[in-house]
């Protein structure tokens, strides 16, 4: 099938199968995350997910045998374009799709692929990521959560923090220490059920008022030994590989929107523009233009990076660093444009957009911290790309 045929077929299928309600801007709480107890707040979101699952298009480029769509990169790009054309919502949000799945496709055994991938594409298992600990943030390899070899199972003890959506997750992919005598070479990559006895989760309230992050405690959690991915003590290389996937994902958050805010340009014009949306104040206009120029250049950079054969770790770090810092700059510019209107916390005196703006501005501060701080990304670039000495 030619790409043009694929495009017309895809367009026709989406026309027929994407429900009208799934072509509207999506509030955060209408996102579909799947899992054992899935929430479909919007009535049409369930059928939309099911239809996309059936087609393999929740994971368009994964092989069909694991529930994917088997599309080429060019075909997947067309699918994205066609979905954007009708403003179709992503059918399923998932750390399994964005992080664990790509990793297992890369390095997983046949058995692991068969066991874990298809349920991810069908949204049956909701995954969370157990990386950071109270004493291991930027110095991630200093993590202390222990997995002791007890013969027929591992016994996990310790604490994770900033575990996104752990309170809704079914399973966790988790970095654990299997050797305490060495640092990087004593880490392993373990998968286990969050409903296991000994797992406790406490949401953390953030400056934005939201509680998407959790503290996660493990007290003598028994994990079957076949749930360790890769080699024992070989987890650090896996951890870094997965971080590259995560960073590429986070770098695009600002570009794709993905939250409840209208596009940056529209907001700037609404808050700072006259009746025609023209921004009369030359300094505000310059601030806005500057960020829109950065956005265009970043968009071209993302395309160029994704088009190149390998997204090396350093390149993922560049995208993560620039994308998140750029998102923060844009939020600050919009706050300047909005003035008092952007400062509302709650209540009916502010309209919904104003309130979302304020919370989103606060939330954006985490973009350059989660998934490795900006400073860590700069370290990675200096080392991996520029070859500067330690």
């Amino acid at each position, binding site marked *: 099938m030619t790409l043009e045929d694929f495009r017309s077929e895809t367009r026709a299928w989406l026309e027929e199968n994407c429900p009208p309600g799934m072509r509207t801007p999506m509030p955060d709480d209408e996102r579909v995350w799947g899992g054992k107890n899935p929430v479909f707040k919007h009535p049409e979101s369930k059928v939309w997910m099911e239809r996309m699952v059936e087609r393999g298009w929740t994971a368009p480029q994964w092989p069909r045998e694991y529930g994917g769509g088997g599309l080429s990169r060019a075909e997947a790009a067309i699918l994205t374009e066609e979905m954007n054309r009708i403003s179709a919502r992503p059918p399923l949000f998932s750390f399994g799709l964005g992080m664990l799945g790509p990793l297992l496709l890369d390095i997983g055994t046949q058995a692991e692929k068969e066991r874990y991938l298809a349920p991810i594409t069908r949204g049956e298992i909701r995954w969370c990521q157990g990386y950071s600990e109270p004493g291991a943030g930027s110095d991630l390899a200093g993590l202390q959560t222990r997995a002791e070899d007890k013969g027929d199972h591992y016994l996990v003890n310790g604490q994770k923090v900033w575990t996104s959506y752990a309170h809704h997750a079914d399973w966790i992919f988790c970095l654990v220490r299997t050797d305490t005598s060495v640092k990087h070479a004593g880490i392993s990559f373990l998968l286990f059920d969050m409903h296991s006895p000994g797992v406790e989760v406490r949401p953390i309230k953030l400056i934005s008022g939201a509680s998407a992050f959790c503290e996660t405690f493990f007290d003598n959690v028994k994990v079957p030994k076949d749930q360790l991915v890769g080699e024992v003590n070989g987890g650090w290389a896996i951890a870094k590989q997965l971080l590259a996937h995560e960073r590429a994902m986070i770098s695009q958050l600002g570009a794709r929107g993905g939250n409840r805010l209208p596009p940056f*340009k529209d907001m*700037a*014009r609404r808050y700072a523009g006259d009746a025609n*949306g*023209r*921004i009369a104040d030359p300094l505000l*206009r*310059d601030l*806005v*233009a*500057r960020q*829109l*120029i*950065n956005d*265009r*250049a*970043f968009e*071209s*950079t993302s*395309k*160029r990076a994704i088009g190149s054969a390998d997204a090396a770790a350093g390149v993922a770090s*560049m995208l993560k*660093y*620039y994308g998140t810092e750029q998102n923060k700059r844009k939020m600050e510019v919009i706050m300047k444009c909005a003035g008092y209107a952007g400062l509302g916390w709650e209540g009916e005196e502010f309209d919904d957009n104003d309130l979302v703006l304020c919370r989103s501005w606060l939330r954006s501060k985490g973009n350059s911290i989660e998934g490795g701080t900006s*400073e860590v*990304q*700069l*370290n990675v*670039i*200096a080392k991996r*790309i*520029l*070859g*500067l*000495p*330690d």
Partner: protein
Amino acid sequence: MADQLTQQDHELLRDTAARFFGERSPLGAMRQLRDEQNEVGFDREVWREMSEMGWAGILIDEADGGVDLGYRALGTILEQSGRTLTASPLLSTVLSATPIISRAGNEAQRADTLSAVADGALMIALAHEECPRHAPHRIATRAVKNDDGYVINGKKTFVLDGHVADRLLLVARTSCEDDQREGISLFLIDNALPGIRIKRTRMVDSRNAANIRFNNVQIPAGSIIGTVGGGADILDPVLDGARAGVAAEMLGSGQEAFDITVEYLKVREQFGAPIGSFQALKHRAAEMYCEIELARSAVYAALDALDQKARDAAELVCVAKAKACDMLELVSNEAVQMHGGIGMTDEADVGLFLKRARVAQQLYGDVVFHRQRFADLIGL
């Protein structure tokens, strides 16, 4: 033709250009031209060799004697020339003046110039700017119709290769007020007509530019290009190509100044360690890397958009020049600072990049110009 170039073609052209400039026109050659106050301002032999490779005719149609490889290909060559700070008629003749004749010249004008330009035998300078800052439509130089053609009065500044060009492509006003887009006309004229006085200016980057005065210069009626008063419609898209081309040269200069600086960070030792091991410098270097990559993407996107005649080409050109300006200002300043005292010496190459940077930043609009133009174009 430009559409048919593959990724491999571009890589081959890049490697060819990198090797050529590295061997035939390294930084030392630029220093020598500067130090001997060379009359011509560039190496005619190097230009002849560049022309033999087809680079002088890279934007000219095959029917007119060129090779028509497009802006992306020319940008690739300019980027490499920026690494060695090579002066050549690429900017003046190939990028700025000749495309006007290619697009709007009549049969006689095309036959008279295009194949000669492609052969490297003819140089044309764009006599356009009149203000200290780029102002494409602020034209006070007047062309007044008389029985013999037009009489020109006015003054042009910052005319690239103005003192060595064989012809001038003159932007003059035939009607309307001095800052209006309407009423601008283009003329292809000889540089040796009575009443033309050309003075070379010595610029900080040691490159060629000239001030040109026109005092009651009589030119023939047949020298006009396109329609009377419709010059801006021809000029504006050519200027966009020129802006993207200069941005490509700036990209190469920024990359080279950065590479030189990173190398220095690895070898210069203080406090018993290479200074590149200090996080304060590492982070600044990594930030520069990001800015260079952003500028690179923006430049390539603009060049591609020009070749594809994309709807948003003008916007992307603004993005490219704006990002290239910000990037090169940052990198050229940091290059000097990170070299410490050595960076202030004439012997260190980073100073050459700093000097060229500011000229290239102003050329065809600096970051302020392009931010404003971008805002206008997108209706902010």
